[in-house]
């Protein structure tokens, strides 16, 4: 289980409740999770349960925590190209066009410039934006911008792609379409994906397992296996049963 996967060992994280204050806020409490290579993990939870904080720790943007994060058995140190990310806001550079924005992911890759160009093109095609290669972020829709961000996240061929509510800001129709595309990309690239979302439907639709988190302090409430064939059908009774099961966790919390 340890090799080739991602392991979270006793992850805890505290913030000072106010800068300089000694009272501390427990954001994450003893998170334990083993993720197999190529697995799709959905993390759901109400806001404030620390799910985005957890993702930042895995990404390496925040290095102040207790516990260990291991990739392929090795503890992580800082950010690394083997971990990609798609943020909720696309975070494209407004002064670069689609192709240049995707190429940002390869800035420090050892590939030759010809290989870089081919890889960038390939990933732009993967997200279906080959006709918009020269467009600037303000010239494309929010859904398209998010697809560019997905291509940028994948272009390094990371072993883990982290998705921090990547579809949260999109309208319902675009979101449903991109959920389908995300699933196809995952099936094709065979990489580990960790999706943080507050949309239970999305979590069940995409995940091999759904990790339900709860706040105060942020911890794992339970983990559900989603043993349904893909692509999943949202009106399948088993899908509905699973979704309602997860939703019932939230009902109890209120």
């Amino acid at each position, binding site marked *: 289980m340890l090799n080739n996967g991602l392991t979270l060992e006793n992850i805890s994280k505290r913030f000072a409740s106010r800068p300089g204050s000694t009272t501390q806020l427990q954001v994450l409490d003893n998170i334990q999770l083993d993720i197999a290579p190529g697995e799709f993990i959905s993390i759901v939870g109400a806001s404030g349960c620390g799910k985005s904080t957890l993702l930042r720790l895995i990404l390496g943007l925040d290095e102040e925590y207790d516990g260990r994060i291991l990739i392929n058995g090795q503890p992580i140190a800082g950010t690394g190209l083997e971990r990609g990310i798609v943020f909720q806001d696309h975070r494209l550079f407004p*002064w670069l066009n689609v192709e240049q924005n995707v190429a940002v992911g390869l800035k420090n890759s050892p590939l030759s410039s010809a290989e870089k160009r081919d890889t960038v093109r390939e990933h732009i095609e993967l997200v279906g934006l080959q006709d918009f290669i020269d467009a600037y972020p303000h010239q494309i829709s929010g859904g398209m911008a998010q697809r560019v961000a997905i291509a940028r996240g994948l272009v390094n061929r990371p072993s883990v792609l982290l998705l921090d509510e990547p579809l949260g800001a999109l309208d319902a129709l675009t979101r449903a379409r991109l959920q389908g595309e995300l699933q196809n990309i995952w099936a094709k690239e065979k990489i580990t994906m960790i999706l943080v979302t507050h949309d239970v439907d999305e979590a069940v639709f995409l995940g091999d397992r759904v990790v339900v988190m709860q706040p105060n302090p942020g911890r794992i409430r339970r983990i559900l296996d989603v043993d349904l064939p893909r692509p999943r059908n949202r009106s399948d009774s088993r899908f509905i049963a699973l979704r309602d099961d997860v939703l019932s966790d939230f009902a109890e919390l209120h």
Partner: protein
Amino acid sequence: MSAVIAASPGSRRYRGWVLPIAAIAIWWLASHQGWSQSGLLVSPEKVAVTAWEQITSDKFWRAISASLARNLSGFFIGTTLGLVLGCLLGLSRHFERLVGPSFNTFKQISLFAWIPLISVWFGLGDVAKVAFLSLAALVPVVVNTCDGLRNVPPNLLEVARVYGFTRWQTIIGVMLPAALPSIFTGLYLALVYSWLATIGAEYLLVSGEGIGNTLIDGSEHFMMDLVLFAMVVIGLVGWSLNALARVCERRMQRLYGIAPR
């Protein structure tokens, strides 16, 4: 009804001309009806004749090109130094702690308060004027460059960290492009200020040729026609520099997807 009330877009566009034309008409009436006996009230025709004499004379073109050359040298020296200083202040915490407080005090000193010192150090010639202009251009460039670099969205800096950008790659690839609109605002202000300062320098450091000296000539010889003509020229040059900067700004905003103001 509405057709009577609503003005066509064409007529609306010309509405801005109403005030100047009315002012000229009153001026014309005043000078022709003898409302004032003062020799200082010249007629519009007299100004037009003087304008024509000036435009066809070498002296005027020497003056205006001297002013523009001064303006541009001061602008380039001031903005170059301003960009360097602004980048250092915006990028280096150490430099900011060392120089920031001094610069913030320095920029509070009114530009014109420098004139006595500048004339002692550099005399009344071109060197002194260009030094004064450079100072005028420097301050807005430093302030806006530094602000732009400090206010790069942290979200974009995180993207650079995720992809392992070095410090240098982050500066060139993220911070400078993100700060560019603000840096441009600084350059724009420098262009406007340096032209204002050109006239100020020529007026206060009286020596040599320049459009400011034309203004002084007119005033010393009680030639109000020459004074008015020089004022119009100064306004037109200022307007052209402003228009030039606006065109550049629009192009840049379009590239950045910012709606033109």
